[in-house]
């Protein structure tokens, strides 16, 4: 029979080891977040937003062809899994002679995704602006483009801040899918550390904590932004 004190000591060294692994992983995971997850999310979101506005305008225009293309694009992207899209871009396209760096492949995949989903938000926001605003803009002599740029989009932007913030927060979490195409962001970093330390529960929870941290910061920023934009609402 083993003396009880020895077993307690064993447990303690086990704990010490875990704590050590946890602490040692903090910096690499944080770095993966700041240097890989966040840039991927930011670049994809910025490009995706541009694509979303173009898509929304195409769908609202009276031109048949752009309208059809936009609807087709949204239909395809929304009807297929993001993970499958990423695999097609990263593992599939090389078969067609197109070899992409993991970052570029991920940016393309996420941009297309943000563009499709957010185009619905942008479209709804534009449609929610009272038609009297268009008419007021026209009546001072503005063209459709000027009315859109100066009068409609600024108001639509205000309306779409809450849903777009949600999209961005979803995107930050979705970037973990990029782990599957060898992009070393938070989640893949956690997988790599797990491979050498055999502590999956610890490492994946630690990765989850980082996502929680980043998303909480973003939520706080969303609140600040909404408050600032509130200035001219209530009309």
């Amino acid at each position, binding site marked *: 029979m083993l003396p009880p004190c020895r077993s307690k000591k064993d447990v303690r060294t086990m704990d010490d080891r875990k704590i050590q692994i946890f602490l040692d992983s903090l910096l690499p995971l944080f770095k993966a977040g700041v240097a890989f997850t966040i840039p991927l999310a930011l670049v994809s979101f910025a490009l995706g937003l541009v694509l979303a506005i173009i898509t929304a305008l195409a769908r609202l225009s009276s031109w048949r062809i752009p309208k059809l293309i936009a609807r087709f694009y949204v239909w395809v992207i929304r009807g297929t899994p993001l993970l499958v899209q990423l695999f097609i871009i990263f593992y599939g396209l090389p078969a067609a002679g197109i070899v992409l760096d993991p970052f570029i492949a991920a940016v393309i995949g996420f941009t297309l995704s943000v563009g499709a989903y957010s185009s619905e938000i942008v479209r709804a926001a534009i449609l929610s602006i009272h038609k*009297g605003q268009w008419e007021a803009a026209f009546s001072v002599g503005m063209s459709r483009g000027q009315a859109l740029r100066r009068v409609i989009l600024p108001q639509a932007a205000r309306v779409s801040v809450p849903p777009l913030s949600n999209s961005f927060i979803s995107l930050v979490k979705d970037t973990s899918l990029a782990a599957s195409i060898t992009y070393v962001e938070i989640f893949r970093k956690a997988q790599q550390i797990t491979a050498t330390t055999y502590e999956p529960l610890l490492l994946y929870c630690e990765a989850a904590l980082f996502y929680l941290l980043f998303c909480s910061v973003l939520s706080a920023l969303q609140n600040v932004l909404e408050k600032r934009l509130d200035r001219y609402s209530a009309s």
Partner: protein
Amino acid sequence: MIEIRDLHKSFGPLQVLKGVDLTVEHGQVMVIIGPSGSGKTTLLRCFNLLETPDKGSLALNNIKLDFTPGGKIPQRTVLSLRQQTGMVFQSYNLFPHMTALGNVMEGQVTVQKRSREEARTKALALLDKVGLGDKADTYPHQLSGGQQQRVAIARAMAVEPEVLLFDEPTSALDPELVGEVLKVIKQLAREGMTMVIVTHEMKFAADVADRIILMDNGVILEQGTPQQVLEQTKNPRALQFLNRLSGED
């Protein structure tokens, strides 16, 4: 200055304007009255092509337009017509994300490409003129209805239109705020501004109008000086409308 001939407009099967002819002279104030649904708003909106007529013609100074069903007016023509007209809406339609000053500067900067400095000076003068010099930095939702409508008048004036169009400018206002808006419009009339005004305010109409048009069911029932239309008409439908109005007061 403005000449409208045989103007027709339908919404689907509903014929709203059934051949309207009218002329507005430079410096004239024309008031359009008539029962609800008679087509007053639609007619006014044809002046700046917020509605495109199906048939007839419209001329404003050197711009001459002939309408055909389904016909397209070139965008350039539409824009230049709109730059020569200003419109004041029943529900003000100020830009809520801009201050009063911003609202009055906007057309000057975006459409007329004036420098911000110049636009600002002009906008401040106009706000002063409508009695809101001290509200330049206020957002629309912080203003009363009467104040918002006066900003809207300043906004319409800022691009120096040939003619100002008003669609029931006071009918969304609380009664105690109507006076301040009518006062501004009367002031413009005295200064010789050409205006076309749709209104239900008969006393104001009689007061400010050089010419009154009484519309009914898509046609002009009666037109002439306020005295001719309001006091001397023999038309039974016109009398019916006028009697109902005086019954209300």
